[in-house]
């Protein structure tokens, strides 16, 4: 369980993280989603004590990270897979983790196997690793202490599609066994596939949070008719606000039943009527972060 309470970080006059509060629960994968520069990494660094918060607290199972007697046994952390001395081998980096945590040496080959790094690869220096291999090594280092909480910053970066699927299955399995996972990403599709709960952040503020199913429900209804103008009139007549999408469909917040009724009353034949699908999350992401995004492109 990770509890973030009113966490704020200011650098001089600039507020990078503004009063964020959320909880990552056991058995759930919590996705921390936001565009680059939104304050995700700063928030995660504050959670593990690498950055001092200006205000607020972050606790892991009720305790500040700095108060954990042997943090690696309780929280697996991967903030940047490339932040390693390039001259060490992958096996050496895991051995350092194993020794400092005081766990059996047999964990090193076990974890190498878990993340599919071959013994030959493990004996190479990480300077020569691809980003995907570094991510796998970073995951191994995070998991080696058998912690009950995982904190991962952009773990899917640099993985090929097979690697992303592997990561998804691994984290799913971890959460199903009661683990708490908090991972950040700017990759909407990845968060959508893996996360149970989503916390969206834009320019340091939480713009929305909730379970993925609730948020998807909030994505609204997609409706399409051969005669779009007639459909629009029917919806306006029923007092339903709708926006037109680029593909010619209309999108509204009300549920499909009300839209169907309005179309029926207006005598419009529908060609499509459904709950906004998984693509809706992306639209919501762009919409929610549009006014806080760096690139001010229309969503």
């Amino acid at each position, binding site marked *: 369980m990770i509890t973030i309470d009113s966490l704020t970080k200011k650098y001089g006059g600039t507020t990078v993280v503004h009063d964020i509060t959320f909880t990552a629960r056991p058995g759930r994968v919590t996705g921390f989603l936001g565009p680059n520069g939104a304050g995700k990494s700063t928030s995660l660094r504050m959670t593990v004590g*690498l950055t001092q918060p200006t205000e607020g607290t972050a606790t892991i199972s009720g305790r500040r990270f*700095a108060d954990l007697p042997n943090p690696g046994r309780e929280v697996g952390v991967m903030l940047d897979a490339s*932040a390693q001395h390039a*001259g060490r081998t992958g096996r*050496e980096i895991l051995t350092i983790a194993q020794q400092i945590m005081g766990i059996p040496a047999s964990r090193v080959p076990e974890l190498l196997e878990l993340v599919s790094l071959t013994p030959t690869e493990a004996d190479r220096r990480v300077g020569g690793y691809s980003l995907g291999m570094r991510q796998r090594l970073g995951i191994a280092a995070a998991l080696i202490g058998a912690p009950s909480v995982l904190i991962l910053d952009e773990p899917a970066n640099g993985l090929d599609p097979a690697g992303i699927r592997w990561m998804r299955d691994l984290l799913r399995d971890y959460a199903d066994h009661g683990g708490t996972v908090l991972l950040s990403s700017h990759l909407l599709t990845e968060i959508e596939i893996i996360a149970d709960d989503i916390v969206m952040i834009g320019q340091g503020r939480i713009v929305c949070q909730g379970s993925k199913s609730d948020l998807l429900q909030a994505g609204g209804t997609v409706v399409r008719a051969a005669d779009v103008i007639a459909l629009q009139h029917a919806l306006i007549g029923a007092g339903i606000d709708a926006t037109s999408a680029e593909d010619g469909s209309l999108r509204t917040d009300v549920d499909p039943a009300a839209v169907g009724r309005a179309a029926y009353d207006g005598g419009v034949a529908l060609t499509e009527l459904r709950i906004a699908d998984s693509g809706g999350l992306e639209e919501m992401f762009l919409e929610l972060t549009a006014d806080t995004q760096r690139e001010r492109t229309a969503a």
Partner: protein
Amino acid sequence: MTATTIHPADQTVRTPPRTEFAPIPLSRIVRVELRKMFDTRSGFWLIASIAVTGLLATVATVAFAPDDDLTYYNFAKAIGYPITVILPMVALLSITSEWSHRSGLTTFTYVPSRGRVVWAKTLSAVIVAVASMLFAFAAGAAGNVIGSSIAGTPTVWDLSIGHALTIVLGNLVSLSIGTMLGMLLRSSAGGLVMYFVLVLLVPNLSALLAASQDWYQNLQPWVDLPYAQSYLFEGMHTGAQWAHVATTVGLWIVLPGIFGLRRVMRSEVK
């Protein structure tokens, strides 16, 4: 993974009995930090260079020193010089690499107390220092026996235990220059540059100033660290010399060291 069981329907989690892990003992952090000094090619060769240059110095002393100078003290001094130069770099890089290579992101999440990590790094550097000096004294003894027998001169043992101890202390002072700079600058490149400025440039400027300015001549032993340090290497004779050592160490190592430690504790690890 702890065996937390979850009931999917209502998502309540049966909290497992909390495992209380034992705190990480300092000895374990020291062992790991010591390992980290050797486990990269650059780290390994930096420390290996102490032994290599030490052996070269022994050979050079045998080959080039005048026969009268083939005494134990001169051997120990020649072999000890590379140690004095290289050890501070070992101490410095051990600290700065956490920032320059960004490995601090993991190191400080394994051990959140940065003070303990830096302390462990300092202790590991001291262990390397003591081991290197034992090597130097042993290599010096071998060189002295071999050198004097080749030259046909009597073997002279002119290094007292007390003097040997002040040499060890002098090297520990050098080493703590590296520790201090590492904490203060937290950058490998910047730290090495400042180190050479401090040990090569500053003493020469200080000597120039002392030669031309009378007022500085009396002040020099109180403010010139390498000058005061040279007493430790050449043998302490007076209480004033100890006072000079204490003052310069306080000025150049303890004060900036405290400032650096505060920066280490508070700075952001990115």
